């Protein structure tokens, strides 16, 4: 574990990413304290530029809402959607992949056909259809993102399980007559945790991007302030009041970048061999 931490800490990008993520999470948690009011309140003159007014350090948007307040409250929704949809995708993908890889045979064939099936449908198009059918809300957005993002998890877990299953200690557990679910849970899955964690950090990043794309097309939840919503609603002003969409866009960009850097750092730390010829 120590060597893991040391490897991770040596990766500068990953450490920076982690710092950013911790800061974003802290802001999200503290949002109600930092900006007690609703971020939807129209408290300023519209189109106020950043750094002009002390009360509105990042300016105001098209109808005079405080951009910093939106940013702070938006972090909660963007993170929430990213994390929850990833979690749901894991809850679907991990068991499917584990069962598929563990049992093999026709079970594997059938489950992998289903996975392939979902990978074949253009994922963004499917997400759009699902959200518009269920009406835009945090719930439908999370569901749509989860539905389009579980197949890679299943494939990854299946691959890992396939190789882990043949190992001696797993075989030993099977031979000693342990029930199947116990073998999978205690012997097989712990070995696939690290690649799944890496994938999860990348998926969270992708989910945040997906949410913003949905908002761009007008399919965001109208009752919650998210970064994607802010970019979408300010995009037509980007020529003249660039800050309205540029600031939340940067927030998305920085957070997604941080998550990717962390994912990469984790990957390197879990697989030191991949770091190759570093001396």
């Amino acid at each position: 574990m120590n060597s893991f931490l040391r490897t991770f800490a040596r990766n500068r990008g990953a450490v920076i990413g982690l710092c950013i993520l911790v800061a974003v999470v802290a802001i999200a948690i503290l949002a109600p304290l930092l900006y007690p009011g609703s971020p939807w309140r129209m408290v300023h003159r519209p189109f106020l530029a950043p750094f002009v007014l002390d009360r509105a350090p990042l300016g105001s948007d098209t109808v005079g809402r405080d951009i910093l307040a939106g940013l702070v409250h938006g972090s909660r929704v963007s993170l929430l959607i990213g994390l929850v949809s990833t979690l749901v995708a894991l809850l679907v993908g991990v068991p499917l992949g584990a069962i598929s890889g563990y049992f093999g045979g026709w079970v594997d064939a059938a489950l992998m056909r289903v996975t392939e099936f979902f990978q074949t449908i253009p994922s963004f198009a499917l997400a759009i259809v699902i959200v518009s059918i269920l009406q835009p809300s945090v719930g439908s957005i999370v569901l749509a993102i989860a539905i389009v993002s579980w197949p890679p998890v299943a494939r990854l877990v299946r691959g890992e399980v396939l190789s882990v299953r043949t190992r001696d200690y797993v075989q030993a557990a099977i031979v000693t007559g342990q029930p199947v679910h116990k073998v999978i849970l205690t012997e097989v899955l712990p070995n696939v945790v690290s690649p799944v964690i890496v994938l999860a950090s990348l998926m969270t990043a992708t989910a945040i991007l997906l949410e913003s794309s949905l908002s761009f097309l007008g399919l965001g939840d109208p009752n919650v302030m998210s970064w994607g919503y802010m970019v979408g609603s300010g995009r037509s002003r980007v020529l003249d009041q660039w800050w309205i969409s540029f600031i939340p866009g940067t927030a998305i960009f920085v957070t997604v970048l941080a998550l990717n850097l962390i994912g990469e750092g984790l990957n390197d730390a879990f697989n030191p061999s991949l770091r190759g010829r570093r001396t």
Partner: protein
Amino acid sequence: MTGFNKRELLKAGVAGLAAGELFFGLSPLANGSITALAQSPKRGGAVRAVVHPEPSSLMLGLVQNTPTQMVAGSIYESLLKYGHDLKPIPSLAERWEISEDGKAYTFHLKRNVKWHDGKPFTADDVVFSTDVFLRELHPRWRPVATTHVERIEKLDDFTVRYQLKNPFGPFILMFELSTTPIVPRHLYAGTDYKTNPNNNTPIGTGPFKLAEWTRGSHIKLTRNPDYHVQGLPNLDEIYWQIIPDAAARVVAYETGAVDILTGGTVENFDVAKLAKMKNTAVTGKGWEMIAPLSWLWFNHRQGLMAKKSFRQAVMYGMDRDFAKDVIWNGLARLASGPVSSKTRFYSDKVAAYGFDPAKAKALLKESGYKGEPIRLLALPYGEAWTRWAEAVKQNLTDIGMNIQLVTTDVAGYGQRLSDWDFDLAFTWLSQFGDPALGVARTYVSSNIAKGSPWNNVAGYSNPEVDRLFAEAAAANGEAARQELYTKVQQILVEDLPVAWMLELEFPTIYRSNFNNLIKTATGMNDAFQDAWKA
């Protein structure tokens, strides 16, 4: 006139525009009067205009959505056009008479009019279009034809008479292009209209013909050399470009890729900026027939909404000036009631509602509201509408209401309205020039029926209002109608069946070297007959 060349006049006009305030409809460049004096029209050239969304079809007899009207308006024609004051102007009919009793309308058609395929246009086409084709298919013509028209007859090859069952004042407005487009009898009689292959290659009598339609990209129209007005049209080609993103449309205009941004294709907050560009004119004219009026529906079937005090609370609680100035960038007017100030028989002798949150709070309390969630259905027509819904939600939250904003796409919106599945809902509807055509439908109780989002979806019912609208439609003479309509407006504004918001403007932005563009009450729909490029 010789001392002045046109370029100088244009420059003067542009300078004036840039220096002073921008007055919609008053800009000298917008109505073309000065430039028209300066020089006679020039032949040739192409114009590139934006249409959004892409029309689904150009067969105007089958499809009458706004984009189809704009593009097909240069291909098809009707008997009349209408000036900005809604007075009829000759088109396919060169003159007409209305009998003393207001029940017979006789139209004398232009001779020497040819369809785009070379066949002659006659009274047979008019009778076929209005008595057969449109009577079967047109959602606005059919009810009028069924209720008010006794017979449509051809008197000779170039004369048609409409005999009505009773006087119907707005009938003269029914010969507008999107209401009664004249379609070629020789191509449609006896066929299945909806699957007729000619629908993809529309044949009209208009100044332009369809040359090519690359779906998702553009529609190209070319000059009709055999047009029935000598020497017209002036332009050689029209390119209607399809650009789905509003911000991209603005950049396309700024970079010179398009010449005309039709009404509603850019967000209103971009209008002021574009108006400051060189060689650019802006006009709010050309929407007199539609006269868009926006309001909030109350669903009178939900207990609270049936209470007048609750409806008044909403009305007093909304900051309509903010919506006008910030969301619509000043390109709007506070609506005083059910009839737009641009529509015939408008009256301003009605009660006024201002922005008064304190009064709103008191009224809300009086209505017995206890914080129940109220769903507000937004209109999915673009950025401005979404911002407006958010602002109204905030206004109403401030007076103590618990508002849940509901967004959906156009299809979902229509479904919710027609299933009466809403509490409050945004809308705007067309006035069609006359209260009998575009206003009564929202308030009369005979128009309460599930399944359509354009009838009385609020479920408002008032026998007095029903009676007045019925009498006014059939009354003979303007004065008699005005009196009845004034009365009904007073009753409605007092009763507040819906919360009227704004009369909207959808300005057209164009390069000022295009002249004679918008000259009628239907604006861009017949903009290119005698337009010319300097």
